[in-house]
């Protein structure tokens, strides 16, 4: 393939040179020797071909090379110096912009943790904002190294889009209504207008819910999340539906949050899970283990503040997590022993990330942890041990 590319570039160059010769008779003597000498255009043509291949590596547009499919992402990320992470900028708590214009949020911190573990620098992340409808193809084609954009893990997406790592947020779909609408339960939904984001599991759950309950509805569908909630707030719809965390997040941004109510009913399971492209097992493991580490850190009481002193802890599990004793798998993955410690010191443990955005003092809004408590506290958050 590269040979062909080189050949083509030479052809292009020589044809350009030839047409230049044909056009200006006076210039001909000057350009003639260059055309005759084959050694001159060859290196210049080969060089762009090489750089093209370098930049294409993360996208793995060049299919055949084993580096592209069999373990290239980590090397590509290291060579590039940044982690390309599919995220969003428009959902408070998960992926939003702060006053200074930085992209922050629960999902973004997961990317930062991976960047800190792999590159030693949590800032070495390039967040690519994706719409719900674009995120699947972006992961499928390998445009992003990692997708952390409140994606619900489903079997068909697992088969089509990429590898899903570990559930980082247990969510469920709910409904938000205007308090003055007089609706108190879903029985009164018949004939209602519902605003929903296109290309989501939400859209399908909504259809299933109304079908199962033999009710009709009118869907108003937008690709942009902002348009969906804008239309709902203006009154275009009676109801809007999404993951409950998202509804809480959006309500916090409304002009009058108290005028809206999130109904108690939950109609679906929405396990929000970061995902990586198919075909690179080592990279899949790396991202998974960073997620394990964040959850284990909370379990073991390792926080962003105390990670340095915990390195000399007596607890052997902490010692292993922080790379002070034994091998948690770093040598096989080609990482630093303290990679996980770096991740924790960059973004904190799971609980800290949660509380930063959605805790009682959270930047975005307050949402009780509910099922997102650790398994030791009666929640569902559980990760394999790091050892």
């Amino acid at each position, binding site marked *: 393939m590269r040979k062909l590319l080189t050949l083509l570039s030479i052809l292009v160059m020589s044809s350009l040179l030839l047409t230049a010769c044909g056009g200006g008779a006076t210039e001909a003597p000057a350009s003639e020797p260059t055309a005759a000498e084959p050694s001159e255009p060859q290196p210049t043509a080969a060089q762009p071909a090489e750089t093209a291949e370098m930049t294409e590596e993360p996208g793995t547009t060049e299919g055949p090379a084993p580096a592209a499919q069999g373990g290239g992402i980590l090397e590509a990320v290291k060579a590039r110096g940044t982690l390309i992470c599919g995220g969003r900028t428009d959902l408070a708590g998960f992926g939003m912009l702060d006053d200074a214009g930085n992209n922050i949020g629960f999902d973004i911190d997961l990317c930062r943790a991976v960047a800190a573990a792999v590159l030693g620098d949590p800032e070495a992340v390039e967040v690519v904002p994706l719409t719900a*409808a674009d995120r699947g193809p972006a992961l499928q*084609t390998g445009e992003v190294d990692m997708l952390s954009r409140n994606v619900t893990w489903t079997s068909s997406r697992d088969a089509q889009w990429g590898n899903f790592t570990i559930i980082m947020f247990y969510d469920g779909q709910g409904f938000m209504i205007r308090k003055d609408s007089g609706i108190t339960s879903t029985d009164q939904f018949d*004939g*209602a207008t519902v605003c929903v984001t296109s*290309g989501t599991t939400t859209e399908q759950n909504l259809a299933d819910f109304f079908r199962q309950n033999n009710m009709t509805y009118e869907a108003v569908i937008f690709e942009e999340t902002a348009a969906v909630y804008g239309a709902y707030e*203006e009154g275009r719809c009676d109801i809007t539906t999404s993951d409950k965390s998202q509804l809480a997040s959006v309500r916090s941004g409304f002009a009058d949050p108290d005028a809206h109510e999130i109904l108690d009913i939950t109609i679906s399971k929405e396990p929000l899970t970061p995902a990586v492209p198919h075909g690179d097992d080592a990279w899949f493991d790396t991202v998974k283990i960073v997620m394990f580490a964040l959850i284990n850190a909370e379990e073991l009481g390792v926080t962003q503040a105390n990670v340095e002193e915990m390195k000399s802890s007596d607890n052997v599990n902490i010692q292993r997590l922080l790379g002070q004793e034994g091998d948690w798998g770093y040598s096989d993955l080609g990482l630093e022993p303290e990679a996980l410690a770096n991740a924790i010191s960059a973004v904190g443990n799971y609980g800290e990330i949660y509380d930063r955005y959605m805790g009682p003092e959270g930047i975005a809004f307050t949402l009780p942890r509910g099922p997102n408590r650790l398994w030791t506290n009666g929640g569902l958050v559980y990760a394999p041990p790091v050892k």
Partner: protein
Amino acid sequence: MASTQSVDQQSTGIPFYRDERILKIVAQVISTIVIIGLLIWAALNFLRAAEARNMTLTFGFLKEAAGFPISNPPIKYEPSMSFGRAFFVGLVNTLIVSVTGIIAATILGTLIALARLSTNWLLNRIALVFVEFNRNIPLLVLLFILYFVIFQNLPRVKESIVWPGPIYLNQRGIYLTWPRLTETGMIFVILFGVGVVLAIIAYSVLRRRRELSGQNTYYGQISLGILVVSGVLGWVLSGTPFRLSYPELQGFNFQGGLRLTPEFSGMFIGLTTYTAAFIAEVVRSGIQAVDRGQIEAARAVGLSTMQVLSLVIMPQALRIIVPPMISQYLNLTKNSSLALAIGFQEVFSVGKIAINQAGRAVPVFALVMLTYLALSLFTSLVLNIYNQRIQFVTR
């Protein structure tokens, strides 16, 4: 003679790689090879990349259940129906908005053009402002203004604006009182349809006879008479063919009447006004291109104003207007894909959802492109045939 000889000598004297004639051919051959090579390379690379990522390039998924809703489907659609059906619903929406848009934009554009040509200063300036406003704002911006600023800020359902008719305006759409066919209404429709066909036949046959023989065959009056008679006959036979359906507030929304959703209305008005501005300029340039002498001559032979317009100005103006008009119609059809931004579900936005739900980006995009291509080619074909018919007939 001497000069050509010297040129010949010169060209035979120089080596082939300096010969301009040969170089031109070589350059053509090389660029053809380069372009074809690049295309083959791109196709091969694409197939290899698709294979490496297990991206299926088949259309089998079109039979699977779609699972997603479509807002206000124009034909029967349930989420349990197939992706193919969903796609078809999108296509119907595209056709509806394009066809209604083309008709409305043509009428509006022609009126604006006539206003622009008017000697009435006020009318002229209003038309000028309309044209300059609409054609100097990007369509997407226009759509956002129409949808998010105007339609979304209409009053709530219970506080609807009522216009005579009654027409109700609210956030959920425009509700018009609309005639609906009664059970016997089909009799009227069929009879009137037959009448229309007969009238058209009578018109063309009698008109041709007049043109050939020069006798007055009263073609206009006769065909109009057929229309009226068939209409009245149908109406009487069917009793009451139509009943007016009034929109009434029931539950969350109005029921009955004809409802235009804010998404459709925004799209329709946006496309119509935007394209009408361009059409107005096309029509105006066409009319102004007709030589003044033609009009003066027509007046001099004693033709009435209507005859001047229909027999002299329009036949000549149309020859100039139609080709650029085809482009405007194609633009309007393709611009309808911007509906994605304001939630009107035409073929492109349904396609985007299908990509996400079925995970088949390449086949879906291929299908969307083919659809637009087919629509555009069909439109140009029809209009090109029309264009040929109105050209000068040379004997």
